[in-house]
């Protein structure tokens, strides 16, 4: 009886090139390049130990501070004659692992607190509010500095600490969306059908807020990279002999006048990576935001 307007019509599959053409139409060039770069970074993070030409601590004292383009050290060497390329690859791995782990922790922690605040209200909500106030009162870098300095830096502590970065953003989003869904929306409807709270949160609310949370993760992720590299730059993050992007920049700073490449290579990687994630995140948000469509 009633005719249905066909809203989404998927393009027919016409092979690989058609797929690429479709992709080109839907993904702007800058975002595409960003995504490619991120893919490269992920591959490096996974395969770094296999593709590193040298051990990161291997010193080649005969060719210290070699400039990029050196036949056996493409990106040059540092003050101890260590291969910059190898250290860079390892640093990407370390920085990405920390940022990734921390983003996950932060998202899980924040979302859980947000849902708890929405479900129980009252005292739980107040507690979350106090925690968020606390976080707002003490800049994260300052707090991290204090904690790291006095507990000493370890990889585990660093990831856990960074895992507190940005949790309040997830908590706020999760709480807001859960409350709006429960007041008049789909979650209220499902409760009214007789569903248990578990079913409501796991089957309905979580999948619905997931996209928004993922977009937040694209915001948090580069910020955590920046935070970790900032700490490492100040000498309080990743400790030698281990190496991260920030700590490479920090040590390279000493040789700014004589061997700027030590610092420039990791600085470039940080910039392009955070830029790529930001571009991809913006694009993703526009795609997922129903009001834009």
């Amino acid at each position: 009886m009633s005719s249905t307007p066909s809203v989404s019509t998927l393009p027919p599959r016409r092979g690989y090139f058609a797929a690429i053409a479709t992709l080109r139409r839907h993904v702007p060039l800058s975002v595409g390049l960003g995504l490619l770069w991120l893919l490269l970074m992920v591959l490096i993070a996974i395969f770094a130990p296999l593709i590193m030409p040298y051990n990161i601590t291997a010193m080649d004292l005969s060719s210290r501070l070699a400039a990029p383009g050196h036949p056996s050290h493409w990106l040059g060497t540092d003050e101890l004659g260590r291969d910059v390329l190898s250290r860079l690859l390892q640093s990407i791995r370390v920085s990405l692992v920390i940022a990734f782990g921390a983003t996950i922790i932060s998202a899980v922690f924040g979302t859980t607190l947000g849902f708890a605040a929405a479900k129980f209200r009252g005292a739980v909500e107040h507690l979350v509010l106090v925690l968020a106030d606390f976080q707002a009162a003490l800049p994260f870098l300052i707090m991290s500095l204090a904690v790291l300095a006095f507990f000493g830096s370890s990889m585990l502590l660093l990831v856990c600490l960074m895992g507190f970065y940005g949790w309040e953003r997830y908590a706020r989003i999760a709480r807001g969306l859960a409350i709006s869904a429960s007041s008049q929306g789909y979650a209220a409807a499902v409760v009214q059908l007789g569903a248990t709270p578990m079913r409501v949160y796991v089957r309905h609310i979580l999948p619905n807020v997931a996209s928004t949370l993922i977009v937040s993760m694209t915001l948090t992720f580069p910020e955590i990279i920046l935070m970790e590299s900032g700490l490492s730059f100040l000498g309080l993050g990743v400790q030698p002999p281990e190496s991260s992007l920030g700590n490479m920049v920090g040590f390279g700073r000493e040789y700014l006048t004589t061997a700027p490449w030590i610092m420039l290579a990791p600085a470039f990687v940080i910039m392009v990576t955070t830029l790529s994630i930001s571009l991809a995140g913006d694009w993703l948000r526009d795609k997922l935001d129903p009001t834009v469509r």
Partner: protein
Amino acid sequence: MTAPILEATNLVRVYPGRRRLIGKAAPVRAVAGVTLRVMPGEVLGIVGESGSGKSTLGRMLLGIDPADGGEVRFDGNPMPRLGTSEWRALRARMQLVYQDPLAALDRRLTIARQIGEPLEIHNIVPREHQQARIDELMDAVGLRKDQGDRYPHELSGGQRQRVVIARALASRPKLLVCDEPVSALDVSIQAQVVNMLRDLQERNRIAMVFISHDLKVVRNIADRVAVMYLGRIVEEASSDVVFKAPQHPYTKALVSSVPVPGKTLEGRMILQGEPPNPANPPSGCVFHPRCPFAFDLCRTTVPTLRHTGPDRTAACHLVPGDAEPVAA
């Protein structure tokens, strides 16, 4: 004589009001002592303007909003507490249809899965027969079988409301509360959905509470109509007579304010002023500040709901009625 499926006595719902700058919060009595009953297979219409408490009342009848006073009995038994497993089990027998179907549907699940959700939750139909039941429901509300794997945003407003109704009917409930089910829809679609609701209600002998601000739609679907003003029922009668010969001045004004195509405004009874703030209701009859017929008694004494004729009640000092009020 059959027993009512739903019986509400002296229902009260109080919201903690917005706090003032200085002083205490004024509580808002959204529902201020409502008594009503619905017989099996009967359609009770509730009309009123925004702020009259009709939506809150609907939610209280289903036990979704707890009562701060009075009680709701469903099928002779008191309403279990919100969130208990008995309460959840009872959902299979009473259902709600919302005003905004897009908000009430999970936009990440296909409509077939959503229609089938009550079956899963209440374990009503064995898994292998669920699909058949879903197809049957979709057919009953006028959706094609191939639309089952669509998502809510791919449907029109009318179709979405059909999905919500199908979902509400999945567990074969005995009571359906519809809160403004068609007011978000276009005129031409409204009629489709109302007709469908009426057919389903008659076919399955479902008792229904139909809440709306649209008198014309209520007139069409309800057997009996209750008119609400500021948390109270001011008049109740069969829908055939209540709009034809309204007794309460507010009902008269409501009927008079319905714009009828081809009729001009002249000779209409146009109420002055706006509904008062529920946090600070007027003394006496809450309608008296807007009532063209109000006299001294109205300003001091709250009129009680009395029988004013066979099967009809009104709460007005000007309408002669029984000596005994209706509710306890």
